[in-house]
């Protein structure tokens, strides 16, 4: 299960959406807007997405990881729009009868999301705004 939202993320609800009585552990990852990036102060981040494609890519990742870790239940939500320092941009929960799979599936999910899902961020700091990742490469 994965989706995009324009609202604050409720990680508790996400956890409850996956937990089964057979699960002995869950791992919850949240990405949070931090007050710095590559040595520069950050005040807020605007998240943009190619929404239908981003949802397809996230679904494909969740499906792939489900095949690799059949015992794991996985859920992902990514928030879009303007987020302030301390706001969560993404939450991923992986529950499993055993903890090793939950850790691995959770980490693999965030790594893959960062590689392929068409979501972008524009950082705002004291010196203005900038899209990340564009300068000097395509």
């Amino acid at each position: 299960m994965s989706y995009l939202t324009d609202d604050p993320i409720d990680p508790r609800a996400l956890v409850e959406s996956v937990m089964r009585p057979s699960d002995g552990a869950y791992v919850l990852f949240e990405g949070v807007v931090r007050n710095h990036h590559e040595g520069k102060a950050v005040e807020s981040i605007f998240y943009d997405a190619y929404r239908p494609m981003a949802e397809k890519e996230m679904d494909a990742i969740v499906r792939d990881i489900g095949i690799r870790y059949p015992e794991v239940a996985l859920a992902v939500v990514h928030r879009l729009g303007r987020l302030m320092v301390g706001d969560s941009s993404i939450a991923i929960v992986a529950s499993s009868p055993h903890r090793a799979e939950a850790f691995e599936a959770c980490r693999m999910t965030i790594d893959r999301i960062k590689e392929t899902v068409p979501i972008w961020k524009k950082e705002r700091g004291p010196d203005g705004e900038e899209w990340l990742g564009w300068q000097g490469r395509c």
Partner: protein
Amino acid sequence: MTVRLLFFAVLRDIAGTDVRELALAEGTTARDVWQGLRGEFAKLAEYAQPPMIAVNESYADPETVLRDGDELAFIPPVAGG
């Protein structure tokens, strides 16, 4: 034929719009469209290689030949999470 070109993130800022309808000749590739944008927008001139490309919401090769009704998007380096 007509192709719908979507702009996101830095490319939307550069193009000043988020969508454009393109009237293209048969045989036009995604790379050809990029070359056109490079000629149109000075900020893209230095990028001889296009960024990642999506056709109809899936990643595609730059040499993909576009078809009538396709939705094309150039995908700047992603930064989700």
